[in-house]
Every structure is written in C-alpha cells, then in structure tokens.
C-alpha cells in the first residue's frame, strides 16, 4: 500500500498498473493449466473436453482399482522414501563435514556434490544405463533408489548447509566442554537446531524422486514403473481421464509438500524473530 502512495506522477501510476496487469496475466498463465486439468478428473464422460457431460468419481474408481496405477503409486512411495532416507544420511554428514572443512579444494568439492542437479537428466540416465546394466542394477529397485539418491542429495546438502551457516558452533564447543560425547552433543544439541533444515531437505529430496521420470524411463523394468512413468506412457498412448485422476493425486502430494515447507519456513522465521 505504501508503495502506491509514493507513486506521484501519472507515468509512474501507468507503469505500476501495467506491472499489475501483466503480472496478473502471468499468474493466470501459471495457474490455469493446473486448475484446468483438475475438474476433468471428475467428469462422467471419457473425453478430456469442456463442458463436462456430468460429474462422477469413475476415473478415481478406475485409478484405485487398476493394479497398474496402484503398483506405480506404491513404487513411487517405496523409491521416494528410500532415496530420501539415504540422501538424508549422506547429505547431512557431508554438510556437517563441509561446514568444518577448510581447504582450497572446497569450492571444487561443493561443485561436484551439487552437479547432479545441473547435468541434464538424459546424460545421467544414459550413463547409469550403461554402468548399471552389467552389474544387474537396471530393472531393480536398488538401482533406482541409488540413482534417485544421487539426484536428491544435493538438495539436502544445500538446505542443511544453509541451516548450519546460521548455527553457532560455540554451542557444540559448550556441549563438549560440559563433557558431552560428540554423538551425544550431536543428538541433543546440534540435531534439534538443524532439524528444520533437515526437514526441508527431506521434502526437496522426496519431491525430486517423486517427480523424476527420465532415469526411470531408462532403468525401470515393468515391475518398477513409478507414477510419473505410468503417466508418461499414458500421455504417449492415449490420454484417458484416469491420467487426470493420477494428476490430481500427484498435485495433492505436491501441495502437501509445499504447505509443509511453508509451515517450516514460517516457524523458522518466528523462532528467529523471537531470539533477537
């Protein structure tokens, strides 16, 4: 509001109005696709067009009663949870180490640790396909979990590392001087303080695995197909409204993840606010 009152000249007001109009159009562009696909999942007809002939839950029924879709949901959950746990362990240890490590090599190591995010998915997928096939890791859960962990860990390193930056290392020293063993100090002092960072890292890691499809395309056998993989073939072959039901399920998961992350951020800001 205060900004609007500071706009004195007509040209400034026009520029501000233009910003609002353009931004509104961009917001519509961003949100329309997600909103447009949702009602179709409640359609009683089998075409993905508006107006809806009637409302029904038949596509959800279809989704829940299809062994293929249910299996893919189960796979996404198994692979997502397992790779999140693994990336939490590896990423947290690495972030703790990197926070203490002083070396000229550090930027290089950090770049290497973060590189799975930047390297195009196809390159990682092709490399893994060649590398994992001879040792029997293609067409296996383990192979997919390992691959997704590699993609997800950078996010854990980033979020936990960011939390550690604001962490007062004197607290760890204080714990040690009071006779706490390193493990005890970690459990009782460090862990509670970096927990919000760990939680958002876990959310990012899970979202990364849950949304990943390129590596699954290359490496998964019919048994390991995940939800996005099943959607990929669904879109390729023929878009049945069951896909829109799957899309709503996926979006609901995203909204839950996003809401949790936002709640964590708010809590963190509140805590920071109260400490100063």
């Amino acid at each position, binding site marked *: 509001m205060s*900004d609007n009152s500071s706009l004195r000249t007509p*040209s400034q007001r026009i*520029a501000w109005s233009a910003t609002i109009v*353009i*931004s509104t159009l*961009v917001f519509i562009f*961003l*949100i*329309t*696709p*997600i909103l*447009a*696909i949702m009602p*179709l999942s409640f359609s009683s007809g089998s075409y*993905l*067009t508006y107006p809806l002939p009637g409302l029904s839950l038949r596509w959800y029924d279809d989704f829940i009663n299809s062994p293929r879709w249910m299996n893919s949901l189960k796979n996404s959950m198994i692979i997502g949870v397992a790779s999140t746990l693994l990336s939490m362990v590896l990423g947290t*240890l*690495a972030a*703790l180490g*990197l926070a*203490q*490590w002083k*070396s000229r090599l550090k930027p290089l*190591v*950090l*770049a290497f*640790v*973060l*590189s*799975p995010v*930047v390297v*195009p*998915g*196809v*390159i*990682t997928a*092709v*490399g893994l*396909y*060649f*590398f994992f096939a001879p040792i029997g890791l293609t067409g296996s859960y383990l192979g997919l979990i*390992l691959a997704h*962990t*590699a993609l997800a860990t950078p996010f854990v390193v980033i979020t936990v*590392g*960011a939390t550690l930056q604001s962490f007062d290392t004197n607290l760890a020293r204080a714990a040690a001087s009071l006779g706490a063993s390193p493990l005890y100090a970690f459990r009782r002092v460090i862990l509670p303080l970096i927990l919000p960072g760990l939680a958002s890292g876990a959310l990012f890691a899970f979202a990364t695995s849950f*949304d990943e*499809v390129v590596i699954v*395309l*290359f490496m998964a056998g019919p048994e390991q197909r995940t939800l*996005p993989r099943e959607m990929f073939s669904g*879109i*390729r072959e023929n*878009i049945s409204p069951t896909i*829109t039901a799957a*899309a709503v399920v*996926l*979006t609901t998961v*995203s909204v839950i993840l996003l809401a949790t992350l936002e709640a964590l*951020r708010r809590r963190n800001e509140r805590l920071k606010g109260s400490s100063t």
Partner: protein
Amino acid sequence: MTDALLTGADASTEVPLKRRLRRAERTRQVKALALVAPLLLFLLFTFAGPIAGMLWRAVDDREVRQVLPQTIAALASWDGKDLPDEQVYAALAGDILAARTAGTIAIAAKRLNYALNGFRTILTSTARNLKAAPEPGTARETLGKINPAWRERATWTTIKDASGPVTGFNLLSALDLTRNADGAIVAAAPDQAIYRDIFARTFLISLAVTAFCLILGFPVAYLLATLPPGRSNLLMIFVLLPFWTSLLVRTCAWIVLLQSKGVVNDSLHWLGIIDAPLRLIYNRFGVCVAMTHVLLPFMILPLYSSMKAISPAYMRAAASLGAPPLTAFLRIYLPQTLPGIGAGCLLVFILALGYYITPALVGGAADQMISYFIALYTTETANWGLASALGAVLLLATILLALVYGKLVQGQQVTGGMKN
C-alpha cells in the same frame, strides 16, 4: 590472537602447545573430510563413474579389433596409398572364417556400417560366400571376386579407421564431420549431417524459452519484490505451486488446454475469433509454451531475490535528485538487477538445453531436442557410441554454462533463489 597468547606463554610449553594446536586442527580437518567422504564415494559410483563411462564409450572403438584381430594387426603396416598386400587379404579371410564360427560378424558389421554405409552387406556377403580359407597367394583374388568392394581402397581405409582402440569417429559425427579416405577431416555426407541442425534447434528453443521467461518473469518478480510481504507471500503461491507440481502433470495439462478440442481452441471459437481449431500442440509453439510454463519459476525466483535486495532508498535518492522515473529505473534499478537477470537466464537456459520429457510429449518430429536423440540412440537403435558422443557435447555445453553461472552467483547463496 593465538600467537599473542603463545608468545606470552612459558617458553618450555610454547612449542608443544603450538604443535598440539596444529595437530588438533589437522584431526578436525581429517574428521570433516571423513564426514564428506561417504557422499563423495557414493557419487563416484552413482554419478561420476557412469558419466565417465559414457564419455569413454564416445571414443571406445574395440569392436572391430575384437572380431578381426589378424586383419587389424596386418593393416598396421599398411601405408594407405594403394590396396593392401596379399598378406592382409589372407588375414581378413582367416578372421572372417573364425568370426563366422563364433557368430561375431554382426558386431563388426554394425560398427563398420556406421562409418561406411553398405559395409554390413559387404561383410555379411563375404562371410556367406567364403567357403574355406583361400589357397596361399589367392586371397586377394578370391575376396575380390566375392565382393568387388575389397578392390577399393575406401573399404580398407574404413577398417583401418575402425581399428581402435579409441576413435574420434563418433565425436566427429556428432559435429557432422568425418574423415575421408586420406584421413583429413571433412564435412559429413548431407544425409548424415543432421546433428548441427539439431544442436542449433536445441539452442534456439532454449534461447526462445529463456527470452519468454525473462519477459514474463521480470514484471512478476518486480511486483512480488515491491508489494508488502503479506501480499507478496500470498501471490508467491502462484509461482511456487506450479514449481512444485509434477512436470508430467503440467505437460499433460498443456495437452488438455492446447489440443484441437481443448480449452483454448474452444474459447477462441466461442469468442468468434477463429472458425477452425488452430494447431497449437505437437509443434514448436506447444513446446515453447509448455517449456516456458515449466521453467518460469526458475526465472522468477532468482530475479525476486536480487530485486528484494535492492534498497528502495536508491530509487528515492534518484527521484530526490531530480531523475525522471524512467531514467531512475533504467540507470539505478535495472543495473542492480543484472546479476539476478544473468543468473535466472543462465539457469533457465541450462535447464532448457537438456530438456527431454516436455518436447517428447508436446513436440512434433521437427521439435525434438538433442536429449531426444541421445535417448533414441541409446534405447532404440543401440548406437551407443554416437549417443555418448552427442551426450559429451551436451555435457560440455552444460558445464561451460554452469561455470559462468557459478561465477555469477558467487557470493550469493548457492541455492540461487531456489527457495525464498
């Protein structure tokens, strides 16, 4: 400060204390490294190793050498000027007979056919028609009779080029280049020279998507950075929700919107703007729209971070010094957003370069980007050498751009505005 303390300390304990401190610090560093080590080893196995393996495949060329070992050995002393001598022909006949028994002819045939179209036929027909080892001294004549291609120098140059163990052949092919019979690097035959076009297409689509993202993202980032926190947090949901929504959901949604009976065409028809449905999808337009939608948050978030950091006092100072609003914006505000613009553009461009899923689902045959061909050669045609070479070029481009990006965001958070 430690030094000041130490010089004040008793001389007899000074040296041991210094040493002890240094030793303690060293132990700390070793412990720190030990914490990072598991991740480094893990990434070596699941990421760096596989990619190094892929790069090796781009130059690996041992197939022909394994199938035709004697021929390759005999060709080593061939000067490449005239046809090779009788001894080479005899070695080839021996190799072909052995490979026919072992059933490995097809491996060499496939590799040689990549280098010289029709080589598969030359090799298989020879293998089929060669009854037994030719009499000493008649090998050249026998093979030449079975297939006249053995009387051509180019056939032999192809084998010699493919003798391995490493080759630049795939990397040259990825750049539409090849070696001629004299070993000079020349442009590839027009029907095989398709990759420069594909790289150019990938580059153009990525550039267009980056430009669209900047044009659409700048006003939004500006609005979000200027509004009071309460309202901008609320509007941020419009950016973060698509950011967190599955790529597959968003791509599917665009198909629903843009198809010939989709929401957009129906609306335009209802408004009386069009009579027949427009073709909005399975073409370049659809690819650009869907990719811009997917990548827009990656532009808005870094822009927002950089704009949020600009103190409003600068603009007020400019205004109080008499600068017209436009001048103040162009001379004071815009330059300060340049790091954000650079970071956002590079991030979007890097991500766009490697895109596979979206173009594969909403693009036509002429809109497929380089990743599509890498995937195609890996899983469909099993031309792994070429797939790896194309991958190597894409990886190189990505790494170079990522280095520039790293320089740009140096000092800023590594997250580059991924969150907040």
